[in-house]
């Protein structure tokens, strides 16, 4: 589905990612884990075409991505960004409609139904301004907006950030549920324990490089990881 080879990018002259290799296959949940500031969000920006690559390549669905956000969305690589980035001045319905601005417009009505059946809370308040929603509701809206574009791969950047423990649990359940319906998901998280519970494979990024990769079971059992991330 997604095949990233030797990806290099950064800001100005500063290289942040120094040769990343990641693949996401059909039907997988792949966790990309790492502490704050290792380049996870930079990786997402590069995948979504917001940052130009200085080296390497991104192949999505068998075709190379040319590095513009429009091309990424058209191909079906949809990102739900860190901090939700919903449109606060617009209603829930308008936010969802704009999710299908570039892709999935023909099936807008059908996909709206799909989003509302996944998030019944949103249906009750379609006229409410998105900026007045709680953090958890905003995250649901952001994911719903992403679903409106009929993603072939959904990238979730820190979906659990800023949510209460109960909502974090709900969020990971939701990710599992979306995946069970056949949607490949790349889950970019700082929350290592819970991400590894639902992921099939995982990559650990440190200082702009993948330092560890493998099945979630193998990675969770790694003594080095336990020491570094779980404090065991």
């Amino acid at each position, binding site marked *: 589905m997604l095949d990233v080879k030797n990806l290099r990018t950064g800001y100005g002259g500063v290289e942040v990612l120094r040769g990343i290799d990641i693949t996401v296959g059909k039907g997988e949940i792949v966790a990309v884990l790492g502490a704050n500031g290792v380049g996870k969000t930079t990786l997402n920006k590069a995948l979504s075409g917001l940052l130009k690559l200085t080296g390497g390549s991104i192949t999505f669905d068998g075709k190379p991505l040319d590095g513009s*956000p*429009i091309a990424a969305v058209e191909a079906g690589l949809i*990102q739900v*960004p860190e901090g939700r*980035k919903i*449109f606060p*001045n*617009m209603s829930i319905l308008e936010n969802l409609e704009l999710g299908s*601005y*570039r892709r999935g417009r023909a099936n807008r009505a059908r996909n709206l139904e799909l989003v509302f059946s996944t998030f019944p809370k949103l249906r009750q308040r379609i006229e409410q301004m998105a900026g007045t929603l709680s953090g958890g509701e905003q995250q649901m809206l952001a994911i719903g907006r992403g679903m409106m574009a009929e993603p072939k791969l959904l990238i979730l950047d820190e979906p659990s950030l800023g949510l209460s423990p109960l909502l974090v649990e709900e969020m990971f359940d939701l990710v599992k549920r979306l995946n069970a319906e056949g949607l490949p998901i790349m889950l970019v998280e700082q929350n290592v324990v819970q991400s590894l519970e639902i992921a099939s494979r995982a990559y650990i990024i440190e200082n702009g490089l993948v330092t560890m990769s493998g099945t979630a079971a193998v990675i969770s059992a790694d003594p080095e990881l336990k020491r570094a991330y779980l404090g065991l």
Partner: protein
Amino acid sequence: MQRNWKSDWIMYSPIILIEAMINGLLTGSIYALIALGLTLVYGVLHIINFAHGATLAVAMFAVWGLNIAAGIDPYLSILLLAPVFFALGYGVQRFIIGPAAGGDDGNILLITLGLSIFIENALLASFGSDTRAITSDLSFSVVELGPFLISTPRLIGFAGSLIVTVILWFVMTRTDAGKAIRAVAKEKLGASLMGINVAHVYALTFGIGCAALAVAAGLLMPSFYVNPRVGGAFVNIAFTIVVLGGMGSIPGAMIGGLLIGIVESLSGLLLGESLGQIGIFIIFILVLLLKPTGLFGAKA
């Protein structure tokens, strides 16, 4: 010379006062139209378009030129000029301002400033500094509304502004393009990730602002004059309206425009024509002192 303000108020009959307010309201609707583009561009690109006044002058010259050269009625010329100015605004932002800004929106401010100097001087070079006007049958005609005499061009201007407002409201709330404009205004990154082309939205916004200026020009010309610097006076007023209504707020620009029109008209009546604009700038200072976010502005 001593004036007795209290007796001045009494001196004017209610009919004259109300008539002045109606006329102010009608003039204000055109101010609102001019402020609309300014506030829209500010709301989306977060910069002041310094070329706004110069663009208005170009539009007014275009109305004048079409009338002189081809005998086209100023109101009729709107139908031609509004789409032309939309395309012009779109093209200038997409292919000149945008690329020249090199990704930094702050640069757009400087480029529009440069454009305004260029346009004003190009107009001076081609038309000289003379003031020109169109004489039409409608210029001095009035309509009787009960006891009030209302100038016909102003009444038509009000109707025209109203139509533009309704169209704009429809575009902004009911079309994907309008929704994309509102989305980019508040959340550029989120919009990009939905595949919204930000450069296209910026250009659309500029285009709409320029089209509104073309409509304003057509509505103004039957009762106003044009020279290369005419835009400055209007933009000063429009800027006050934008601040009064709240930077970036479209309803704010409409209500603010009507209010400023009434203030200008009443202070013109009470203080004399030459001091009429004092009222506007007193309001400007008061808004900045008391409610810097304006009537409809959100907190920064």
